[in-house]
């Protein structure tokens, strides 16, 4: 499950990173003035063109994996085209972590993502971070798959 998801993220984001035109259908051209799109539309476009708004981490780790870097490269490409968008990177930990360490390690994950996006040319002023520790569990359960899906950083378009 986890591997399949990573693979999907890798393939789709790599495709959009190398051949940005491929992810757009010729019959539906991108809107010429993105600001006229509502935030929901922008979010949908961001996810479609970046492959995912999330990257995942190993246990107790804030190291960016190769699939995570590919996703972030695609996210950075979109964000550079949209300097008007304010972004909040939300770090999360899994439920097996202890309360306070979860807060700190989730903050570290959000910081890693922010730093990488800045490295790829996204203006730092566009980005903020917040740690939710293990307070917003996305997938319930103690299975390894569930834990892996909760160790994440989400790039949230605020406005």
């Amino acid at each position: 499950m986890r591997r399949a998801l990573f693979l999907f993220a890798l393939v789709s984001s790599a495709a959009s990173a190398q051949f940005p035109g491929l992810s757009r259908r010729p019959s539906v051209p991108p809107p010429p003035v993105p600001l006229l799109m509502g935030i929901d539309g922008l979010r949908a476009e961001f996810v479609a063109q970046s492959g995912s708004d999330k990257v995942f981490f190993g246990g107790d780790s804030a190291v960016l994996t190769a699939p995570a870097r590919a996703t972030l490269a695609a996210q950075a490409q979109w964000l550079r085209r949209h300097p008007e968008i304010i972004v909040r990177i939300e770090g999360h930990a899994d439920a097996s972590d202890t309360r306070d360490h979860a807060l700190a390690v989730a903050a570290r994950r959000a910081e890693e993502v922010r730093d990488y996006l800045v490295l790829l040319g996204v203006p730092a002023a566009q980005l903020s971070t917040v740690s939710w520790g293990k307070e917003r569990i996305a997938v319930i359960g103690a299975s390894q798959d569930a834990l892996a899906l909760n160790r994440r950083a989400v790039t949230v378009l605020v406005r």
Partner: protein
Amino acid sequence: MIARSASLVSVALALFAAPAAAQQAAAVIAIPPLTTPDEKATGAGSPAAVAWQASQLIASDLRTTAELVPVGPDQKDYYSYPEVTAPTFSRWRAKGAKFVLTGFVRSRPDGRLTVGCYVYDTLKGTELGRTGFVVAPEDWRRAAHKCSGIAYTAATGAPGIFDTRIAYVAESGPPSARVKRIAIMDGDGNNQSFVTAGDTIVLTPRLSPKAENLAFVSYVDGQANVRIVNLTSNEQRPLVAGSGGMSFAPRFAPDGRRIVFSMQAGANTDIYVADSSGGPAQRLTAAPGIDTDPSFSPDGSRIAFESDRSGNQQIYTMAADGTQQRRISFGGGWYAAPVWSPDGEWIAFARRIPGAGSRIGVMKPDGSGEKLLTDDALDEGPSWAASGHELIFQRAGPDGRPALYRVTLAGGDARKVVTPQDASDPDWSGVVD
């Protein structure tokens, strides 16, 4: 209430069924009903009614301990007012009681009640302790808890855990939209009240030693930050003003005036100490990595904390000024959330073992003598009872829903603490004045 008394009954049975070694540790204490010189007045709040209720509460308090087995109260063990300070020791010796608790409830002209309690050694015929209070009739529970406290102290030498408060996070709602509120209850589960409204995520309430103030973490500013609330005035304020990174993991010093906590800057998290009434924070650790969950030793001279500077979470101690940092945990897995015991003898922790969940354990402050007290569960967040003989902690069920449990240092099964809602992050105060 029904669930509570049912669980108490099962505890008493478990004690009787325990192995011989455990039976030796538990001494019998006779609790004949408290007496009163005012026998004419009856009805709710009258001395006679309060005397009977208080006797039952004292027995129920002591039944929650591992060290004492209360017998009584029984109406036929009634004694006269003068016999409060002159009990018939032979009678209690014959019943196998090592201790006897006597006492009285007397009405005062101002409408309040005087409650007095005495604890005796039935073998030696000597008084081991006494306590007395003047209380409003509706506050009789606190007086009874104080009576339980002197009985426990007489038998064990440790502070009683009955006139204490427990702060925790009350949780409700679906997992995706959990409502979290800071709640406080008496040590016996009574007098539940809420400190926060549930409109923002709150974490890790920590009571000052006498339960006058409470530090906790709130997302009210959009990120985790430590706030302090005075429990009398309800006034609330941030611990550190206008910090960049989040602040969390607060814990009061034994003097109640300082707070140790963590503050995050970028990918790094360090430990700081600040005056609980305001002022700048002083940095105590500077190692790259996550340093968190600081806890003072009871004499205030040292601080235990958790750090992943070695690669994963381990327990360290340092002097209160941040010098002499040294690692004390070396077992497999991760060690987290150290808490120094009130008698200074132990450091409790949560240990995560790969593939085996997370357990509560204790070790000596030099790292020796490690023992795990719980097994096979997702346990975390230990907090000591004032006695230093017992811990309260959080256990998550298979569905992720947390509840509070108590476990004694002597071992045995953990017992669930009944709360009206799901509960996490417990913190047990010292004995309230």
